[in-house]
């Protein structure tokens, strides 16, 4: 996972959505980006500027209309949908704004979910789950139903889930967006710390410049293009 290649490369990536009127809507227009293991990059931009779209492209959830996306040097463009899905399962972790935990599974089961999808046998999986929960301070809650957790706790569980398969790229779409400031801070600290510890690259989408400021680099999406270090408060 820490080979010679960057974890994520966007190479002149363009994304055009067909609009209802029949005309097309260009959301991304020649975006270049390179992100290495251990690096943290923040992406800011107005609502509707295409941040989530970019994240989807990086995760192989969508394919760009032009340009290339490479994960650990592998071009997603040449891959089948199934291959992209498997690559997402093995190399990419995602943290969502709304946590997206399954309410009918308990904490440990939610974390173990990517392992189940992977078809991994129980012993090693349980150990890894315990380890991650321990690191986020939820070891004693592992049998609790997730419905009883607070928002911050839920996001910690989601973070563990994203890291379960030891991804080389961690994508976070407004991970603090539905948390209060203090909790958001704590989650952000954990996110950065864990990404560092797991040696994975982190792409962080956020509205907040204070959050963005914690990253090594900040990019702003504007009119479909990336601008480094906007430096202006939005």
């Amino acid at each position, binding site marked *: 996972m820490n080979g010679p290649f960057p974890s994520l490369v966007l190479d002149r990536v363009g994304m055009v959505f067909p609009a209802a009127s029949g005309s097309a809507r260009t959301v991304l227009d020649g975006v270049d980006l390179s992100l290495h293991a251990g690096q943290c990059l923040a992406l800011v931009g107005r609502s509707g500027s295409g941040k989530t779209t970019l994240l989807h492209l990086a995760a192989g959830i969508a394919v760009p209309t032009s340009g290339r996306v490479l994960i650990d040097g592998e071009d997603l463009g040449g891959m089948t949908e199934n291959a992209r899905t498997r690559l997402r399962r093995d190399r990419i972790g*995602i943290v969502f704004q709304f946590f997206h935990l399954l309410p009918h599974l308990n904490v440990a089961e939610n974390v173990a979910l990517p392992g189940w*999808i992977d078809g991994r046998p129980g012993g090693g999986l349980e150990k890894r789950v315990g380890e991650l929960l321990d690191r986020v301070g939820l070891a004693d809650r592992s049998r609790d139903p997730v419905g009883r957790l607070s928002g911050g706790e839920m996001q910690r569980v989601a973070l563990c889930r994203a890291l379960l398969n030891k991804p080389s790229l961690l994508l976070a779409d407004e991970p603090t967006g539905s948390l209060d400031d203090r909790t958001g801070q704590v989650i952000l600290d954990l996110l950065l710390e864990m990404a560092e510890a797991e040696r994975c690259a982190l792409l962080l989408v956020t509205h907040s410049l204070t959050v963005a400021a914690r990253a090594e680099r900040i990019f702003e999406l504007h009119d479909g293009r990336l601008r480094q270090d906007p430096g202006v408060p939005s």
Partner: protein
Amino acid sequence: MIRVLGHGLLGLVREGRTLLLLTVVGVSLGVGSVVAIQTLNQGALQAFGGSVRAVSGQADLTVLGTVPTIDPALLPRVLADPAVRDAWPLCRLDAALADGSGDLIQIVGFDVFAPVRYPLTRQLDETGSAADPGDLVAAAMAVPGWCAVTPHLAASHGWAVGDTVPVSSGSRLARLVIGALVDFQRYEPLAPVNIAVMDVAQAQALLARPDAIHQIDIVLAGDEDPGTAAARLQRNLGPGVRVLTPEQRAEDAAGLLAAFRLNLTALSLISVFVGLFLVLASVQASLVRRRREFGVLRVLGMQPRQVLVLILAEAGVLGLLGVAIGIPTGFRIALWNVETVSATLTSIYVLEEISRLVLTPTVIIIGTAVGLGGALCGAVLPALDMSRRGVVELLSPLTMHEGARRTAVPLALLAVAAMTAGLLWFVAAGGGNRYAGFILGFVMLIGLPLLVPGVIRAAGAPLRPRGLGWVLSLRNLTIRLRTSSFAVAALAVTISMMVGITLLVGSFRQTLVTWLDVTIRADVYVSTESWIRAGNEAFLDAELLTALGGRPDVQAVETQRRLRVSTADGRHRVWLSGIAFSAVPGVTLASRLPLYAGDPEAVAGRLLASEAVVIGEPLARKAGLGPGDDLVLAGPDGPVSLPIAGVAFDYTSEAGTAFTTLETFGRHFRSDQPNNAALFLQPGADPDAVVAELQRTHRGRPLVFRSNATLRREVLAIFDQTFAVTRTLQTMALFIAACGLALAQLIQVRERAGELALFRALGATRAQISRMFLGEGLAMAGLGLALGLGGGAGLAALLILVINREWFGWTIRPDVPLGALALEVAVILGAALAAGIYPAWKSGLSSPAQLSRDDL
């Protein structure tokens, strides 16, 4: 309001075409099965009524023989009654066409001078402007074999006026001449097509016996009340005849078919019950999805009552769509099944064959009520639930399944309590009630679905998933308990019905086979082509019997005379057989008596030594008779009382049977000419070779020779035919249940869109998601199967031990037809899998991109 309703319906169509389609299909199949069965039931009765009206259209009363011929001396006595304006005799018999087809026609011999123009003869008068009616009457009398048939019958056999048609009655052959084509159905649309009308004297001379009268039709004078006149005539004419009004004759036929009809009706109602779950599930799902819409409507000022009406109106439209498709479908299904039902009616109940089915207004009303009522019933609970919720509750993302989870245990307890109470009631008080078995069955079928949520929870809750395997599938069922409960409940009820019937039919068949082993012991059976329906007049001639007895390879000939008589009180019809038993080494009479009560040796001894009769089990149960009692029959000269020596298992007729020696029979019923013969061959003779040789020797004669094996095969074929409609009903119910499964899974795909998107985002492939869904479908099928097998065993016990005994009078030995059950389980699992394919495919389509927008 109307606009909101229209909008809502459009919305339903737009967002869930498949869902809507499945619901409508479910409702329409439920309606269809009811319509099909009611159409067939009515068809059977109408065929009988049609034939009564065609022959006796203008008669106020009919005198029928109990033997069933009538002493001709009674006719003057009928005419002497002051209330009788006119009366005329009829000679009725069934003849077989001797053209190799073996098709049967009904011969009606009537008095061409009868003063009344009932449908048959009225049409005769009007036929052919060329011929003067007087000429026709003259021809009917003068031309030997002259008869009038319907154009339909003539066309189907390629006959033209003037053709000669050979027919047989028993071993007698006669030639009929097609004298006129008469469309009887113009006056009586339900008149049998296979009817041939001729002069009564000719019919007697050619096909029956001189003076053989089977019926006297009566027209009353002026304003005499038919009931009073009938009672007086009955007194005057004595117990050898029955004097009936047309209504009484129709009731007779209805009574004869009561058990058969009731069973089919009950089965078809199970389909409706299963269809109800579909409506419930789909209304529920659409309401869960649209709760925000209702919340907004409420915010905008809509009253709770209006919400209720709106939802019910939508369900009503669904129901009407189901009705619109279901009624024609049901009629179609009735048409497909008419042949087998008709065959059952003619071979088992000796009624008219159904020549035409009509969709009557009554059936349409029943079908509409069932479809519309079912849809409204299915919708009313979720609708009430929805209309009672507060605005805030509607607008907040609550999960409706929480409620189901909480009520699962109480519901299951309620079910257990209801079933226990039902059982206790049945044990304590059920004996006195004919319908007790049906009521208990109904309670069980209501209880079973109530158990379902509890069972699903119990199956899924204690398990901890460790991967995407079946444990997770089972767990997932418990999450959306409402949806999965509906599907599993529908399946469980359907499987109960299927398994119950399969166990019944399997046990019955096995019992029948065992019974045939005991009773069918001769090597070759001889009867005539017309015998099936015309037992009374279809005799074997004496020369034939002598010839058969003289064959070197024949060890013994046993002859049988069979007659339909009634008990002296007129309450029971009995097929009475007189048998000339022969002593064949190794095949004693005692060894051939499948006795239910009595010692075979003693019973056989009494039967041979003195006047006694053995009665069949159905008659014993229905008439409450047993060994030591007397069977009192209506004989030609008054009551005939025969001591009952024993009760035998008997599966030939639910109407009742009895047998005695041919000698005793002849003494009381005047005739000992046999209808059938059974040959016991010399040891070493090959029955098939003998049958082949007999067929060669008697080529051209209307005789039927069957080997032991052939006869058994034919008996079992008739048995299987009787249950053919049941198979159709089972298939329809399975279809509905499969729709229910597909429906539940589609609802799940929709309600779990977020969850599926999450799986995809975490790297689950489409195939993995589809497999998970198929697994859930199979888990539902498995639970439905487990519950259904239990319910089916209970239902079978009820059908075999209670309902069949009570309604048909048969003892059936329970037997588990493993092969048939295994096949059924395979079919059910196959159907479940097939039902899951589309939803599984659909589930794989969910896009992980959705996650960033929706919540779970």
